[in-house]
């Protein structure tokens, strides 16, 4: 209601301004102030508008700082994966760089708008180009970018082709997407996923796993994703219908699930769910969220990692999610031993 009122006031405000300006224009015309100068702006206009540019600059930079402070607790917490830490470092460096450039160029732009606002008695300087200056501001960005590119590419290739210890085989887990639910399939003892194809879907075999493939029988199909901490996992992504995207923001992980092909991503989670719950940043976020939920009368929230769909996939795209639990190896083994294998499911 309150907000509706604000909107109505907004509309009325605009109408009022429009009318006021009309009256002002007309009366100025009557008084004859309006002459040939209306087409071009007057010195007074220039002064006023220049001033406004300067005020806007302060608002823009001030607003930016206010948002950084105000929204700090809403942002994602520290990365809970090995590669995520490198992503965050690269992020921080890039962010600082662009913030510095932002804080240099925007003030200059608006300040010039103010400082050089026109006067009848002044003339602009005639300056068409300056090779030295132009050379500098081509080369400086080029050098900075070269650094950024090299750093970025090495981070990217480390994520996409991670180097593992020799005796350390990643655990293979399939993430299966369909409208509008996620399923996980663990590869079992043999660490090999059985062959699967949509054409074999039927009855309890909802993922189309080939029952005649020996590798299938020990596969384990679950609707929650549990992962042992500090163990590399190689996810294989599959989709049954349209493109989905498996997004686990806390691990800085995202990969599309594309019908007809398999995609993959390697992850090593480094923080258990419990550890993340006691992280101070996370606690600040949770208490804020629960304050809001309390006001609304919703039940309190306890943090969990989450897998959400991040590619438009249909009407319930906004609610396609799976709970993710990172736990110690013992807890994981215990949970796993309670799950049914594919053979048992059939």
């Amino acid at each position, binding site marked *: 209601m309150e*907000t509706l009122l*604000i909107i109505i006031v907004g509309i009325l405000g*605009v109408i009022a*301004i429009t009318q006021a*300006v009309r009256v*002002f224009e007309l009366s100025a015309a009557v008084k004859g102030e309006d002459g040939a100068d209306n087409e071009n702006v007057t010195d007074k206009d*220039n002064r006023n508008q220049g001033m406004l*540019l300067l005020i806007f600059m302060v608002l823009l930079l001030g607003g930016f700082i206010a*948002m950084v402070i105000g*929204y700090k607790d809403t*942002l*994602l917490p520290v990365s809970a994966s090995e590669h995520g830490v490198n*992503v965050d470092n690269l*992020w921080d460096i*890039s962010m600082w760089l*662009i913030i510095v450039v932002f804080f240099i160029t*925007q003030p200059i*732009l*608006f300040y010039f*708008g103010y400082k*050089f606002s*026109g006067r009848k008695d002044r003339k*602009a*300087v*005639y*300056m*068409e*180009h*300056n090779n030295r*200056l*132009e050379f500098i*501001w*081509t080369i400086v*960005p080029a050098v900075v970018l070269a650094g*950024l590119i090299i750093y*970025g*590419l090495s*981070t*990217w290739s480390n*994520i996409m082709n991670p180097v593992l210890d020799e005796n350390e085989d990643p655990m293979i887990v399939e993430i299966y997407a*369909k*409208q509008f639910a996620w399923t996980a399939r663990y590869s079992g003892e043999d660490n090999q996923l059985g062959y699967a*194809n949509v*054409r074999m879907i039927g009855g309890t075999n909802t993922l189309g796993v080939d029952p005649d493939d020996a590798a299938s029988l020990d596969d384990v199909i679950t609707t929650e994703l549990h992962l042992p901490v500090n163990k590399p996992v190689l996810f294989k992504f599959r989709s*049954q*219908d349209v*493109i989905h995207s498996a*997004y686990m923001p806390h691990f800085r*992980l*995202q990969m599309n699930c594309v*019908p*007809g*092909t398999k*995609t993959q991503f390697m992850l090593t989670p480094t923080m258990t769910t419990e550890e993340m719950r006691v992280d101070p940043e996370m606690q600040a976020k949770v208490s804020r*969220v629960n304050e809001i939920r309390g006001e609304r009368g919703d039940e309190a929230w306890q943090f969990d990692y989450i897998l959400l769909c991040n590619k*438009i996939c*249909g*009407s319930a795209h*906004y*609610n396609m999610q799976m709970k993710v639990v990172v736990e110690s190896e013992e807890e994981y083994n215990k949970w796993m031993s309670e799950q049914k294998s594919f053979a048992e499911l059939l």
Partner: protein
Amino acid sequence: MATHEAHDHHHEQSFVEKYVFSQDHKMIAKQFLITGMIMGIIGVGMSMLFRLQLAWPDHSFPILETLLGKWAPDGVMDPNIYLALVTIHGTIMVFFVLTAGLSGTFSNLLIPLQIGARDMASGFINMLSYWFFFGSSIVMVISLFVESGPASAGWTVYPPLSALPQAIPGSGLGMTLWLVSMSLFIVSSLLGALNYIVTVLNLRTKGMSMTRLPLTIWAFFVTAILGVLSFPVLFSAALLLIFDRSMGTSFYLSDIMVAGELLSNQGGSPVLYQHLFWFLGHPEVYIILLPALGITSEVISTNARKPIFGYRAMVGSILAIAFLSFIVWGHHMFVTGMNPFLGSVFTFTTLLIAIPSAVKAFNYITTLWKGNLRLTPAMLFSIGLVSTFITGGLTGLILGDSALDINVHDTYFVVAHFHIVMGLSAIFGMFAGVYHWFPKMFGRRMIKSLGYVHFWVTFVTAYGVFFPMHFLGMAGLPRRYYTNTSFPMFDDLADINVMVSIFAIVGGIAQLVFIFNFFYSATRGKRASMNPWKSNTLEWTTPVEHIHGNWPGEIPEVHRWAYDYSKPGMEDDFVPQTVPIRENEVETGH
């Protein structure tokens, strides 16, 4: 009309020939502008509706039921119509407003006038271009009313979602109409672009060498080349999608079971579509942006009363941006599972674009330095454009970096980025163009003070809408979500969403000020003089009353570049291009 009759060597034009099936570039420009504005009202209106949903998800708004009928029972939007609104909003803003509305208007208006031509190379093709656009707009609007709803797979219409009516209702008839509309649009765009290219190459007046072309013309020219090279690829993408949808082919489909039904398609790749789409899609963002930058160059130089700084570098950076824009499309596809090496290549080429973009930004700023700035509404919008171009361009450095894109791809960070760098910059460029060339288009002046009000409300609310979205994205909020309430981790973003929506609604309503000013001034505004901004370019040597053929007598000859403002030794602070070089004038190489 005396001048008109003097020149009119052919028969009197009927009403239909003059205002409807006109072949005069100035009239066609107005047709593009007004059609674009109507589409703009629809597109922005839609964004206000879905912003209501995002800020107040469970609230009942009777207006929604009035407007959307069965799609908003009891005033609460249905998820399908939310996706449809977002899709059509994106399509309309990108193609109808900022491609046809922007290029169509200003390329048509300015190319013949600024290069000194009597009209486009082919008036007839030019007319066809408009009418294809008109047809395309009509089909798009009709698609809003079909039973199963308009296209709702996002403006990028990725298959399989867009190919399968079983997957989402909007992929039924609505999607068919979307594809028909876009096909007409592409035809329009190609006809227009070919005409612009031929005109610029062949019809320049005596003395108008390529290096004396105003930067507006350079921008329109390169934009047209981009369009000719990229739109056919979108056409083929759409055609294959049409085949997959209605003829059982499998270009994009393979191994699919949807809504319990196993499809027979096999062997296709949905990612192929994305390659084809973005091969157009990325150049498309420059098709939108370059004309706006061209307009800004002209407006800033004229109103700073200073030559545009580094003309050659400006032309060079337009060409560099245009070339690079063809080899960066993969940055939209980093997480599709593409070969990581390919991802590296696209990161490399993408970040390179920052260099010519930075050159442009620095050159604009330097043009202001020690100028004698006339802060007209057009000039303010241009300064606004430089600001949003910088802000949005900077976050491009993050998104272009494949390692960083992993975590913000398809989040609100992207929505913030592209709205600021492409949406706002281009809209500001378009407004700057309208305020600046209004006297040329309609022979009348716009009301200055309303222009100021319009600029400030728009500028403040535009930043207010899109700046906070960066933070939403950094909190991990995905785009194209009907509501964020399914995830407690997003509950603390609700306030931000409310603030954004209020800015959006106020900003949207403020456009009424512009619309009033536009139509009022076009019909009843005060008469404009011939060269109101004391500008150098040729369009201001044509009579205020439009005549067919533009100049009553001979086409003027050009003796200098377009940017001799405040040249030392000259009595005025501007020297039109038609003024011959004086004997003792300082040579500047143009």
